[in-house]
C-alpha cells in the first residue's frame, strides 16, 4: 500500500502563534486549530431515525443528543446537525470504517468529512462577542447553551459551531474556505486582542 502522507492543515502557514491586535493585559480571545482523526456525517432515511440512533449509541457508547445538542465522551463528540442527521468527531482514525460496518446503506448514508473540515477553537472572555460580530445568530446562552450545536455562516462561508461552554466554541470550517474564515477571525479578534496558540 502506498504510504499516506502526513495531513496538512489548510491553515498551516497562516496560523502564527503569538499575541496580536489590541494590547491589553490579557487577550480577549484565544484561537487554536486541530484536525479530526475522523469526522463522519450520518444521515438516516425517513423512517430509519430510531434505528440509526440505536446504532450510534451502540458503536459510540454515547446517548444520542436531541436536536441542536452535542454529547461528548473521551475523544468522541456526537452532534445533532439536522433532522435525522449527525456529525461524529473522533480523535481516533478508523471511525468511518467502524460506522460503515454497523450502518448498512438501507439504514442511512455516511459521508466521510475527515479531510473536508478543520476545527478552529475560539475561547476567552470575548469569544461570544467576536463570533456575534460576524455570524448572524443568537449567541445568548439561553438560545445557544453550552453543549449546543448551531449551523450558520459568515458571509456565505458555512460553519458548524459547537459551544463547549459559555466562553468556548469550536468552529468546523470547510478546508477550502478556512482561509477566508480565519482572515475574518483575525480582524474580528484584533479589536479585543487575540492570542494564537
Amino acid at each position, binding site marked *: 500500500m502506498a504510504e499516506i502522507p502526513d495531513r496538512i492543515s489548510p491553515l498551516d502557514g497562516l496560523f502564527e502563534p503569538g499575541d496580536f491586535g489590541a494590547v491589553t493585559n490579557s487577550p480577549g480571545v484565544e484561537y487554536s486549530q486541530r484536525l479530526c482523526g475522523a469526522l463522519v456525517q450520518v444521515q438516516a432515511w425517513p423512517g430509519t431515525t430510531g434505528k440509526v440512533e440505536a446504532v450510534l449509541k451502540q458503536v459510540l457508547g454515547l446517548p444520542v443528543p*436531541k436536536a441542536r445538542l452535542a454529547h461528548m465522551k473521551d475523544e468522541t463528540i456526537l452532534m445533532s446537525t*439536522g*433532522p435525522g*442527521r449527525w456529525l461524529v468527531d473522533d480523535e481516533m482514525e478508523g471511525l468511518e470504517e467502524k460506522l460503515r460496518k454497523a450502518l448498512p446503506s438501507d439504514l442511512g448514508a455516511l459521508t466521510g468529512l475527515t479531510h473536508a473540515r478543520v476545527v478552529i477553537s475560539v475561547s476567552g472572555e470575548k469569544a461570544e462577542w467576536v463570533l456575534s460580530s460576524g455570524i448572524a445568530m*443568537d449567541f445568548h446562552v439561553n438560545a445557544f447553551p453550552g453543549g449546543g450545536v448551531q*449551523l450558520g455562516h459568515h458571509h456565505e462561508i458555512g460553519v458548524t459551531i459547537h459551544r463547549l461552554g459559555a466562553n468556548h466554541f469550536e468552529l468546523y470550517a470547510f478546508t477550502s474556505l478556512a482561509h477566508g474564515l480565519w482572515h475574518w477571525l483575525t480582524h474580528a479578534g484584533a479589536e479585543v486582542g487575540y492570542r494564537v496558540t
Partner: protein
Amino acid sequence: MKITCPYCGERDHREFTYRGDATAIRPSIDNTSLDDHQAFVYDRKNTAGTHRELWNHTSGCRTHVVVVRDTVSHEIFSCEPVGPFAKQLARNVAKLKGAGA
C-alpha cells in the same frame, strides 16, 4: 427579514435559498401536454400580497420550509416544514417555542 427554521430557530433570510412558488405542482409524468409543462416551469402570478413559497435552509440544516410571506411588506405569517422529515420537525417546532427561541 427573518425566517424561523423548524430545526435551527429564527435566522437571517440570507442563510436560506429561495426555491420558488410552493403552489406550483409539477404535472404528472404521463401528462404529455407541452402547455401544462410550460405553465409549471414558467407561469407565475407575481403576487403583490400573501404568497406561499419554498425556502431551503442552505447554510443551516438544509430543511425545506413553506413560508407564507407578504411580498409587499415582507411580513412572514408562517413557516412550516415540508418533506420526509416534516413530522419529526413539527415536534421540534413545539420544543423551540417552549424554549422561547
